[in-house]
Every structure is written in structure tokens, then in C-alpha cells.
């Protein structure tokens, strides 16, 4: 039961991370901040899980990581969406949105039709 939950979460996390880097290259902490701010703190994701997701995505060549210099002049590893990553993001987010809609519809229906 716990495993199933995790699997869903993991898939979700991957899509969220891809979304985060879809406008510009970000480093890990920036991604973590983006997720926190955009969800208004509702999603508290372990940094450890985030990095595992990042490296997994990199292995699948959906993102590429490259060393760069951060705003306050520190070395940081920036992740950028690849072409494959963008295609995956489009497909996966469309799927997830429609899935979420369906679930929402089912769960928020006012009354059982007679």
C-alpha cells in the first residue's frame, strides 16, 4: 500500500521537477524553493528525494546538469530541460491533469444521479 503511494508520488515529483526547470535552468535549491513557494508550502518534499529525482531524470536524458555560478557567486549544478524532457513533460502533465480532473470530478460530485 505504501509502495503504491510512493510510486504515484515519485511520478508526480518527476513531472513537477520538469515543470520547474521548463522556463530556465535552475539548481537544486532553486527547484526546492520553487516547489515550496508555488504550493504555498503544502508540498514538503525531502531534499534527498528531490536530488534522487533530478539524477534519475538526468539518467533518462530528460534534463542535463551542468556546473555554473549562482547569483551569489557560488558554484552550483544547474539543470536544464532537454528536447526529450520537454516532450515528456507535455505528455505527462496532460495525462496527469486529465487524471486529476477525473478524480476531482468523481470525488466532488454533488449527488448520486438517480
Amino acid at each position, binding site marked *: 500500500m505504501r509502495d503504491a503511494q510512493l510510486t504515484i508520488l515519485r511520478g508526480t515529483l518527476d513531472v513537477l521537477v520538469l515543470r520547474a526547470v521548463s522556463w530556465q535552468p535552475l*539548481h*537544486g*535549491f532553486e527547484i*526546492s*524553493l520553487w516547489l515550496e513557494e508555488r504550493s504555498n508550502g503544502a508540498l514538503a518534499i*525531502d*531534499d*534527498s*528525494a528531490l*536530488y*534522487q529525482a533530478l*539524477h*534519475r531524470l538526468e*539518467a533518462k536524458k530528460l534534463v542535463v546538469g551542468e556546473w555554473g555560478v*549562482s547569483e*551569489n557567486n*557560488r*558554484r*552550483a*549544478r544547474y539543470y536544464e530541460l532537454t528536447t526529450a524532457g520537454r516532450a515528456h513533460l507535455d505528455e505527462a502533465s496532460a495525462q496527469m491533469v486529465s487524471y486529476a480532473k477525473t478524480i476531482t470530478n468523481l470525488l466532488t460530485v454533488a449527488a448520486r444521479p438517480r
Partner: protein
Amino acid sequence: MARSLRNGIRAGVRRLFVPALRTSRRTQEDLEAELAAHIDARVEYLVARGHSPEAARAEAMRRFGDLDQTLEILQSSAEDREHRLNLSDRIQAVRQDVRFILRGLGRSPAFTAGVVATLALGLGINSAVFRIADRVLLRAPVGVSDPSELRRITASTPVTGAAPVEMPTFSYPVARLVAESRAFSRASTYASTRGLRSVDGREISGIYVDSSFFALLGVKPATGRFFDTRETEPGAELSVAVVSYDFWQRDLGGVPLTSGLTTKISDRQYQVVGVTPRGFVGLELDPVDVWLPFGVAQLGRAVINGVTIPWYRTNNFRAMRVVGRVPRGVSDSRVAAQAGSPLAALDAEGGTQPRGVILRSISASRDATGSDSTSRLLGRLAGVAAVVLLISCANAANLLLARAIRRRREIAVRLALGGARSRIVRLLVVESVLLALTGGLAAALAGYWTGEGLRRLLFPDGRWSSAAFDDRTLVFTLLVALAAGLAAGLAPALQLTNPDLVTALKDNRHQPGRRSHHTRALLVVLQTAFSMALLIGSGLLVRSMQKINAVNIGFEPEGLVTTEISNLSRYAVLNSGPTTNRVTASEIYNRLGHHPDVRGVALASLAPFGSQQSMGISVPGQPEPVIAPMNGPFYLSVSNSYFSVMGTRLLRGRLFTSVDVRGSLPVAVVSETMARLYWPGREPFGTCILLAGFTCAQVVGVIEDIRDTRGGSAPPPRYYLPLTQRTDRSLFDAPGSDSAQAVIIRTTPARTAAMVATIKQLVPTGQRATIDVISDRVDRALRPWRLAAMLFSVLGVVALLLACVGVYSVMSYIASERIHELGVRIVLGATAADIVRLVLAGGTRLVLTGAALGVVGAALGARLLASLLFGVSPLDPTVYVTAVFLMATIGIVATLVPAMRAMRTDPTVALRAE
């Protein structure tokens, strides 16, 4: 050791060999840095929002989760990934490289052909030598199990005041004594025989064996059985034979043995009881047709004081070889000591007996004659072939370097654009390896023919041949090619990708890296040195050859034909076959006397180049000289015409005449060596030789030495007795018997073949007769020297040519590099002669340095050749001077062409090229 090796290798090279380690370490560092940066960023973020640094760090750590575990997870998955990536990446990269290289090579076919040909030459020679050496020295005989336990056992005979003499054969009683020793887990004795004939009169090869021979070698019959102890007991006369698979198929039609298959071998009907497995030839290389039990062997007999003793009862008839298996874990020396100990008590029987045995591996001495001169020659040849390979590697490296230098701007651009140095090194090395492998493949193909040719040269009597496709030779050749490719490619690659060379981009095009000049010069010097050494080696051997040809052999070999016939009456006791319809030597002598082609004919007890006979002699009043065992004095009973037919000159005294008949004063003629040994400092005339203790033969003449033993060895002492006086007869034979077994016929060199045919017609089928053309025998005796001289000369010339190409290519390259400088010099007033002198000086300096090194190397190495030299010192000044002169001439000629080209340099063109 490992440490110093690591430090001795340049960092760039080292990195080539440890890619996995490097990847993993970098991954870990990257990961740690990334996560640390993350923590720092969060701490900074929290501090900016009013947290204390300590609280901020604690919160950052809490938010992260288990840092160490994460690191571990990420690290291991990264490694897996990199590993997979690297593998496919690497395959991809190599494929790309190969395609890139092939395209490049295709664009310069002359260069490609040059390098491939150079390497193929060096590799081909090695492939051919390996093919033979593998067969003769390395590979185990076919069908023999556990050959590493097998030993050939030889006899060690002590000599007063000298090292013991080693001999390959024993007498039958001694062979049995050794073979039955408990020192061996199993041992066997055998003897090869000449002159057996099949039903159709063809000469076939046979070996007499005892009952344990096949079991010792671990061979099972293809069909039928092998011999039992009853059949192999000497004198048993049970006519059974084992035949080879090929003989069974070819001569006997592969008929099943159950039908009571019989065949006639040399007038005797044998029942075929067994067939050896296909390919089995025993321990020698030559195919064997039949194996016969010792029970039917008629090898000879001795008559001592009128008593006939068959070959298997005397210690003085030595034709048996012994082979045995040593028990596991026991040292050879212990086995030899134990097996040799019963020999101490042997009855001397008037001869010198072996007192110990020596164990030899069965492969190192596979020459059936027991001589290892061919193996020794083969060993030297392998060494020389390796030197030629080194020369061709140096040459290929030179060509590769020249090409790489031409591409140095391209390489510098690649390096500057961030091309990994390792990749460029790899490209250059893979290129040379590809070239070498192509050369190796060509060499392996050509090696079949050259190897077969070499086999015929080294073993002209051998009937074995090397396989058409020999996987071991192919693997050897390709491995050597790989090594050669690496060797030839690595130096130019490292040289060229040296960081200093990146500056080549900015450099003036006319100033190539000095280091590349040095490398090329070094290669030329090395090549010249090796060629020089080889040239001297072949010079020494050619001179030995000349010396041997100039040796007076004491007779005129051209047009001499001999026939040796086992004497009927001598062997009548043992011959159980039909005795009618045989011809004796005397009958051939009488019949040929009037033949138109015959210039002269003589009778002798034995033919030259065959076996030797001796009896106990002494010279009253003279001390016994020291003579090595089996080295004489030998005697020969001859007809009066013998010396004139042989062409042997009388030095002093007289030859036999018609007055020397039975009943007159017994006389003898001695050889020069005999006279010197037995009568040092005085004439032998008037004294006598006491033959076997009772007949005294007066010495009447001294003749020159006849050298019919191995080419270079000193002639043994000999004496001659007149056949007419029958002085030898009373000791050895029943009255009325005839001791002449050989007819010596003098004809013209052009008629020798016809004479051999005439004699063959006189000998009935089935009778044993050995017909020899003496000039062939002389050639065979001189063959080791001739061969060595020829093979070394060929290799020397190849090396010289390679060196010539090397010098030429370097000099013309250096000259073309200096074209700008030369142009300036011409403008400043240098004459054409100045320019030529300038270029020549550079080339000559390289060649002379190489030559000097080569002379030193040859002087050190020539000692290895000493056993192949005859009458020539390893430091023979004539050879050295000639070789240096030749090398210098060739070096200068190779330099002259580029020098002439430089002389014609048009200064305006040269300067405009700026």
C-alpha cells in the same frame, strides 16, 4: 616496482589505462560538491530570513534527510549509469575512430602500402620462422599423451682429459638395462631402419620397437593390436607388423585386419596385426610406414675372435634409442643418476662404454640424426628474425612520424579546440595497429609459402609438411603484429601530442618541433645499427661458407657414385629370407668395369659417408694417443684402384700395388692425421700397426685426409688395408667370405644420374642397396653452413634495404623542412656544392653513428654465432671493414638524392613560401 612503473609513465598515458577509476572518483566529488552547495544555499536563505547560522544549518540538515545515505544511493546509480554509458560510448568511439582512420589511409595509398609492406616483411619472416620452430621445437608430437613427462635418453661416455661425449644411441643390452631401470615410470627402446622396401619396390620407412613402445606413448591402435613381449624378443622371428594409417589406406586398401591381412616387406611376408591412429608418427617428424617388432630385426652382428655374436648380445653395436617417462615430482637429475648407475659395471668388451645417461626433452632434439645443429640454426634464425622485425618497426614508426608531423597543425588545432589528448593518442595508435594487423594478415598468408620453403631448406629430407592453415602461427603472427603496431605507433603519438606542440599553431611553419627531429634521427640510428649488426653477421657466415668450400676434402666428389650392399655371406647366418638372386659388390664391380660411362671403379669394405669400422690396434713402441670415443682410428679395406678412383693424393711413400697379395708382407697406408697422431714428429715407414693383437701390417704410405664426416669437424685418423691381402678377414669372417660391401664408381658429373639408374638395374628388387651420389652427400654435409650463410644474407639484405628506405625518408624530409633556410643560404651566396655538402653531412653523421653502434653490437653478438662459423673469427676485420664500407656507401647514396633536390632549390620560391 609497480609504483615506480606508474611514476615512470607520463600522466597522459597513465590516464589511458585507468578510465574507470577516474570516472568513479569524479562522480563522487561532483555529487558531494552539489549537495554541499545545496545545504549552503539553504543555510544562506534561512539566515537571510533571520535564523541564527547554527539553527539554519540544523534546519537545512533536517530538511535534507539522510545525507550520507543519499550520497551512497546517488553514487551507486551514477556508477551503473556511467559504466553502461562508457561501454556503448567506447564502442561507438572506436567505430568512429576506425572509420575516420580508414578514410585518412584511403587518401594516402602510397603511405599505407609502404607501412603495410614494411611491417608485413618483418612479420612474414617471423611468421615463417615460427611456423617451423613451432613444429620442430615447441609442439608436442601428434597422438602422444603427456609429452611433458617424456624424455629422450642419451648415452654419456667419459673421455680421459676431456668432457664426456653424448651420443643418441645405445647397444641393445645397454638400452634394455636403461629402459628397465626403476627410475622411469615406463621406458621403451626403438631403432629406425633404412632400406626397407614395399611390395612394389618403393623404399619405405620403418621402426623396430619393443612391446612397451606404444603403451609408453599412450597410443591406442586405430584397429587391431600392438606387439606383445613374445614378438619383440630379439630372434623370435615372428613375422608380424603394425602399419601406419596412411600405409594401411594407401598400400593395403584399408582392408579389415580380421581377414588375415598380410604384406611383403623386403622379401618377407608379414601379418598385419594393427594400425596406428591417423597422423601418429612416433617421436620424430617424418612419417613412418611400418613398425616391426625387434623379433624380426636383422641389424648386424659382430664376430669376435671367430665367434659370431648377434647385434642384441653385444655392447658394441649401437643403434637403439631409449625414451622414458619420468615419475611426477622427481627431478630429472635424480632419474638420470638412478637410471645410469647400472652402467658403471658394464663390460667394456674392448670398446668404450657409456657410464651414465642424460635426459633430454623430446621436443628440443627432434632431429632424428640426434644432431641439434638445425635446431640451433633455427634458434639463431628466430633471433635474427626478431631483429629484422625491430628494424621494420623502426621504419614504420618513422613513416608514421613523418605523416603525423605533416598533420601536426591539424592535431594542434584539435588539441586547442579541447580534443582530449588521450583520444588523439588513441587515434594515432589505433591507426598504426590497424596497419600492423593488415601487415600481419598479409604476412600470415604469405607465411604459408615462405614457411614451406624454409621447411624444405632446413629439412630437405623431411617428408612432413606444415599445415595449410595453422591457427597457432596465425595467432602468433597477429599477436606480434599487435605488439609491433603499438610499438610503432606509440612513440609518434606521444611525441606529437606533447603539450609543447600546441604552440605549433602560433609557430612559423618552417620550424618543426626539435624533438620530432630527434626522435626520427634516433630511429634512423637504431635502424642503421641493427642492419649493420645483421650485415656483419651475414658477412661472417658467408666467409665461413667460402672457407668451407675451400677446405680440401681429400677426394674429388663430382661424378662419384657409390653403392653399398649388405654382404650376403656376412649376414647369411641371420638372413632367413631367400638367399638366391642376390648381387654382391664384387659382381657389380666386375660388370661395371667395361661400362662406357665408367672412368674408374674400385671396391672397398664400406662406402664413404656411411658407417665406420674399427678394430683394436696398437703401434709397438709408440704410446697410445688420446682419441675421443667413436672417433677412430677407423680402417677400410680397399682395392688397389681405390685412391685413384677417389682422387685422393699420396703424400709420401707408396700406394697398394699388385705385389701386395695374400701371403706377401702385410701392408697398410695411413692418413695424414693418423700419421701425425701415432708417429708425432717422425715418418711411420718401417714400423707396423698391430691389428687386433696378431697381424702386423707394415706402413708403406701416407695419404691426404678424407673428410667424409660432418662438414667442419676435424678428420678422424684412418688406415687402409689392401683387400687382396685379406688382413681384416682372418679376424672377422669365416674363410671364403667377402668383406667388400661397397663399389666406388667414377663417372662424369653429367652421367651420374644415368649411372645410378644402371646400378639400380643390377640390384634385384627386395635386396638392400644404398646408392649415393657423393656430390649430393657433400652438399648435405655442408648444408648447415650454406643454409646459415644464405638465410642470414637474405635477412641482411632485407635489413639493409629497410635501413636504406629509412635513411632516405628521413633525409628527404629534413631537407624539405630546411628548404627555407637553404633558400636563404643560396641567396647569401652558398654554392650548389655547399648545399649538397650541408645535407650530406647531416645524413652521414646519422648513418655513421648507427654503423658504429652496430659494429659494437655485432662484436658482442657474434659470439652467439660462433658455433655456425668455420675458420672465421667472430671479429674478422675483413668482414667488419667491408660491412661498414657498404653501409656508409648506401647511407650516402640514400642521402644524395634529397641533397641533389635541395641543391636545385629555387631561392625565390623557397622564400616566397613564407
